[in-house]
C-alpha cells in the first residue's frame, strides 16, 4: 500500500465526513436551540435525494435539483414544525423520540408510494463527471465538490454564527433561551428559522449524496445512527462538536474499514460508549 492509496482513503474519509457534517450540523443546532431530538432528520435527507431525482428528471438539470430539492425539503420541514415539532418541544425526550420514530415510518412509506422500492440513481453534473488530479491521485471531481461544499457550509456557518447579529442571537438563545427572550429576541421566530435551515441542509445533503450513494428507502435509517453518534460525541447543540465529531467518525469508519475490517463496525459504537461514560456532555459541549 503506497502513499497514493492513503491519499485516496484520506479523500474518501473527508468526503464522508462532510456528508455527516451537513446532516449532523442541522440536527445539533436544532437540539441546541429547541431541545428537540429529531430522528426524522435523516428522513428529510432521504426526501432530499428523492425529490432531487424527480426534479432532475423533470428539468434535466442536476443544478436545478441541487437548488430546488433543499427548498422542497424546507417546505416539508416547515409543515412538520407547525403540525408536530412546535407542540412536542416541551414533551420530553421519550415522546420526541417516539413521534419522530413514527415520522420515520411515515416518510418511509411515502417514498415507497411515490418512488417505489427500487434504488434510483442520479447523474451528477456533466461539468463534474471526470476526475481531477489532486496530491498525485486521480479523484472523482464530484466527490471533491462535496468536500468543498461541506467546507463551504462550515465556513459560512462559522461566519454567520460568530460575526452576524442573527448568529449572536442564536448563540444567546442556545446559552439561555429565557434570558434571550427577555432581552427582546423573538425566540419562537428564531426557532422556526433555525429548524427550517437545518431541514434545508438535510435536503442538501440528500441531493448531494444521491449521485454517489443512489437513493434507497433505507438510506435514511442507514445514515441516522452515524449522524446521531456524531452529534452525541461532539456535544449536543455544538457547532464545533459537529465538526470534530463528523471528522472523527468519518475517518474512523473509512480507515477502520480498510485497516481492521472485522472490527471496524464495532469501533464507532465503542467510541460512543467511551465518550458517554467519560464525557457524557460530549467532547465540545455547547454550554461551557
Amino acid at each position: 500500500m503506497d502513499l497514493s492509496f492513503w491519499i485516496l482513503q484520506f479523500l474518501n474519509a473527508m468526503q464522508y465526513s462532510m456528508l455527516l457534517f451537513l446532516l449532523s450540523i442541522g440536527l445539533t443546532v436544532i437540539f441546541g436551540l429547541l431541545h428537540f431530538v429529531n430522528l426524522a432528520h435523516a428522513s428529510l435527507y432521504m426526501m432530499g435525494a428523492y425529490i432531487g431525482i424527480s426534479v432532475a428528471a423533470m428539468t434535466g438539470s442536476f443544478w436545478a435539483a441541487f437548488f430546488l430539492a433543499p427548498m422542497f425539503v424546507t417546505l416539508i420541514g416547515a409543515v412538520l414544525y407547525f403540525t408536530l415539532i412546535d407542540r412536542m418541544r416541551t414533551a420530553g425526550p421519550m415522546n420526541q423520540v417516539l413521534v419522530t420514530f413514527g415520522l420515520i415510518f411515515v416518510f418511509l412509506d411515502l417514498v415507497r408510494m411515490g418512488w417505489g422500492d427500487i434504488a434510483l440513481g442520479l447523474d451528477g453534473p456533466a461539468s463534474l463527471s471526470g476526475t481531477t488530479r489532486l496530491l498525485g491521485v486521480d479523484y472523482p471531481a464530484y466527490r471533491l465538490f462535496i468536500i468543498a461544499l461541506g467546507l463551504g457550509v462550515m465556513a459560512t456557518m462559522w461566519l454567520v454564527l460568530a460575526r452576524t447579529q442573527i448568529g449572536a442571537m442564536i448563540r444567546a438563545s442556545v446559552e439561555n433561551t429565557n434570558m434571550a427572550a427577555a432581552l427582546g429576541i423573538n425566540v419562537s421566530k428564531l426557532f422556526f428559522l433555525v429548524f427550517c435551515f437545518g431541514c434545508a441542509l438535510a435536503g442538501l445533503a440528500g441531493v448531494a449524496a444521491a449521485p454517489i450513494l443512489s437513493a434507497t428507502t433505507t438510506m435514511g435509517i442507514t445514515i441516522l445512527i452515524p449522524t446521531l453518534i456524531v452529534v452525541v460525541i461532539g456535544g449536543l447543540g455544538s457547532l464545533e462538536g459537529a465538526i470534530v465529531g463528523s471528522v472523527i467518525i468519518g475517518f474512523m469508519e473509512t480507515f477502520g474499514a480498510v485497516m481492521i475490517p472485522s472490527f471496524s463496525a464495532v469501533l464507532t459504537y465503542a467510541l460512543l460508549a467511551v465518550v458517554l461514560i467519560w464525557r457524557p456532555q460530549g467532547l465540545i459541549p455547547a454550554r461551557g
Partner: protein
Amino acid sequence: MFYQTKLRSITLIAALIFLACYASFGSYFAREIVVEIIILAILAISLDLCAGFGGMVSLCHGAMMGVAAYGFAIMSAKLGWPLFPSALIGLFAAVVFSGLVGWVTSRTNGIFFIMATLAFGQMAYTFFFKSRWLGGDDGFGGISRFDLSMIGLETNDSLVFTYIGLVILLLAYGLTAIVMRSGFGRTLSGIHVNEDRMKALGVNTAAHRAKAMAFSGFIAGLAGIIAAQHTLYISPELLIWTTSGEALIVVILGGLGTLVGPIIGAILLVLMKHEISNYTDYWHAFIGLVLIFTVLAGGRGVFGQIEYWFNKLTQKHQSTTKPHGDDHA
C-alpha cells in the same frame, strides 16, 4: 408505583383467554400470530419495567432479547448442550449483558441514556452480524424445542407451543408485577421520580438502576428463548435497534407503566400489522400515524386511557380511597 388493581387483573385474564381462544380455534397461521404477540408482549413488559417504572427509555431491549436467544442457540445447536442448561446460559448472558449496560449507563439520563443504550444495542447487533462462525447476517438454524414428552407435551405441535408461550407470558407478567410491588420496585419508582432524594436517603441509585436493567434482561431473555425455539432459527434481526423501537411503540400504544398495557399493545400492533398488510403494502405509515396520534392524545395508550377514565369514574364515588397495595418501600 405498581398496583395490581382489579381492572388490571381482569384485563390480563381477558387478554390471555382471548389469545388462547384465537390460537385454539384459528388456523396454523393464527397460532403463528399469537406466538408473535407473546414474544413482543414479554419484550414490552421487560421494557415497561425499565421505561415505565425506572424512567429508563432503553433502545437496547432487542439486543437483550437477542443475546439470550444467541446464547441459547450457541450452547444447544453449536456446542450440543442439553436444551434446559442452554436456556439458562442464554438467560444468564442476557442478565450479564443488560446489567453491564445498566451499570455503564447508570449516570446518564434522558436523551443520553437513549443514545447510550442505542449504541450498546447496535454494538451487540454488529457483533453478531459480523460473526462468520454464527452465520453473519443470515444467522443459523438447527435449534430444537424443549422436549417435554415426559409430562406428555409435544412442543413441536404449534398449539401446545402456543399454550406454553402463554404460560411463560403469564409467568413473566407475574414475576415483574411481584418485583415491582416489592421494595425493590418501589425504590426504582422513587429513583425515577427524584434520583437526588433517593441518593440522600442512602440508596445506591446507580447500582439499583443496573440491577433493574439486569432483571429486565432476564424477562427480555425469556422472549428471546421463545423466539429462537419458535422459528428454530436465529438471525441478528432480533437485535437491531428497530426491534427495540417496536417494543417501545407497543409499550406506548398499550400504556406505559401499567404492565398490562404492553400485552394489549402487542395484541393491537401485531393484529393491525397483519390486518393492514392484507389490504396494503404500506402498514409502516399506518403504524407511524397511530404512534404519533397516541403520543399527541396524551401518551397514556389504550389501556392507560381506559384506566384513566375508569379511575375518574370510580373516584367520583369514593374520592379519598386509593387503590390498595402493600407499601414497604
